[in-house]
């Protein structure tokens, strides 16, 4: 059973969505996602609903890489397997919190663009560079900002859940960074594939962004966790 391909905004071809239950409305364009007033109850639930789907996509990407690259070094496969477990725990914990706040699975549309982008690459180095280094590296910043935001909204319980998630994500970024670093000497060709994958994603990001969409504010860099995850300090 294989998952095919779809063409989306800007003529970009992505992997089609992984399987979802009928209760979900899966969209392929960011402009079809729900928008609510900042800090409103709906906005908070939509954030958590999106976080659950992000965690599930991360699980699916790690699992697909285990299935697709049987000859990868065992050490990396072991890290990917551990990541699978971590992402299931994150999804469960965030869903539990969403339900405590009155939300439910399928309450809002979901988009599986990370999966669609990452699973276009046919090398493990490319996938780890994009998913673990670029996307999960970025999520270190986003999640840390969310922890602060939920605290400001007077919800330390959700802030605590998200803080635990960020702590785990550091390890996922770190093992990818360490492996990519080793490729410099052990397999420079694979490293080139990783670099090419990251360049492709930057180009797609522009094509996939709906016209008029602007970054509402600059997300602060999570210096501590990025340093622990193996990013250079400068």
């Amino acid at each position, binding site marked *: *059973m294989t*998952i095919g391909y779809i063409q989306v905004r800007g003529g970009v071809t992505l992997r089609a969505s*992984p*399987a*979802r*239950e*009928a209760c979900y409305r899966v969209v392929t364009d960011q402009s079809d996602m729900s928008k609510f007033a900042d800090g409103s109850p709906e906005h908070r639930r939509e954030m958590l609903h999106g976080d659950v789907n992000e965690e*599930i996509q991360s*699980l*699916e990407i790690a*699992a*697909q890489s*285990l*299935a697709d690259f*049987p000859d990868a070094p*065992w050490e990396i*496969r*072991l890290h990917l*397997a*551990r990541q*699978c*477990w971590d*992402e*299931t*725990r994150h*999804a*469960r914990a965030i869903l539990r919190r969403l339900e405590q706040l009155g939300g439910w*699975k399928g309450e809002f549309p979901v988009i599986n663009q990370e*999966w669609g982008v990452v699973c276009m690459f046919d090398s493990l180095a490319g996938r780890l560079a994009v998913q673990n280094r670029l996307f999960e590296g970025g999520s270190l910043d986003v999640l840390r900002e969310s922890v602060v935001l939920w605290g400001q909204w007077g919800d330390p319980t959700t802030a605590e859940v998200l803080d635990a998630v960020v702590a785990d994500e550091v390890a996922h970024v770190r093992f990818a960074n360490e492996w990519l670093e080793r490729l410099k000497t052990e397999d420079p060709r694979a490293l080139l594939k990783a670099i090419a994958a990251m360049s492709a994603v930057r180009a797609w990001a522009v094509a996939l962004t709906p016209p008029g969409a602007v970054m509402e504010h600059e997300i602060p860099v999570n210096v501590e966790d990025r340093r622990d995850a193996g990013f250079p300090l400068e």
Partner: protein
Amino acid sequence: MFLNVKERGDCVATFRWIEVRLMEMLAAWVPTTPEMEVKLVFGAHVWDAAQHADALGRRTQELRLPLHHSLAPSAEYVGLLSELAATSETGRRIAGFYDCVLPGLEGSLRDYLERVDPLLDGPTVRILERIMSETARMVDESRKLREELPAVQLDDAAWLDGLRRRQASLTAAIPVLAQQAARA
């Protein structure tokens, strides 16, 4: 007569092969299974199977084989696993994995434990005991999953019976154990 070092190494390497295959099977099912709760159970058990494979792979090196050495089981058993891996219906995936393959593997591990000196092969015994305990937890979690989500209960008992019968008939799934049984 107990299994010798060479035979034990081959068995452990075969158990490792099977755990890696189970890990890959669950991993491949994660994106293609629609039900979120099932996806999450499969994803968590990927890590269990990986840890089992890792412990067995470290043990192969202590039994005069390379680190993480793997040895394929019989072609018939490989075929059975491939067929199960190719199923797409969630109920069959769960039942085939947790009600047939895992209990079958546990039976092979028990068979092995009966054929070794627990003192001389103590490290393997500990590893297999841990695997059996965790396998029991995995099966229990699959039972709870089906209680929580009755829609993923298998509605084709004959299919599961057929799979179990086929697995039971594969006496040579672990070649070394089959050879020793034949000698006895």
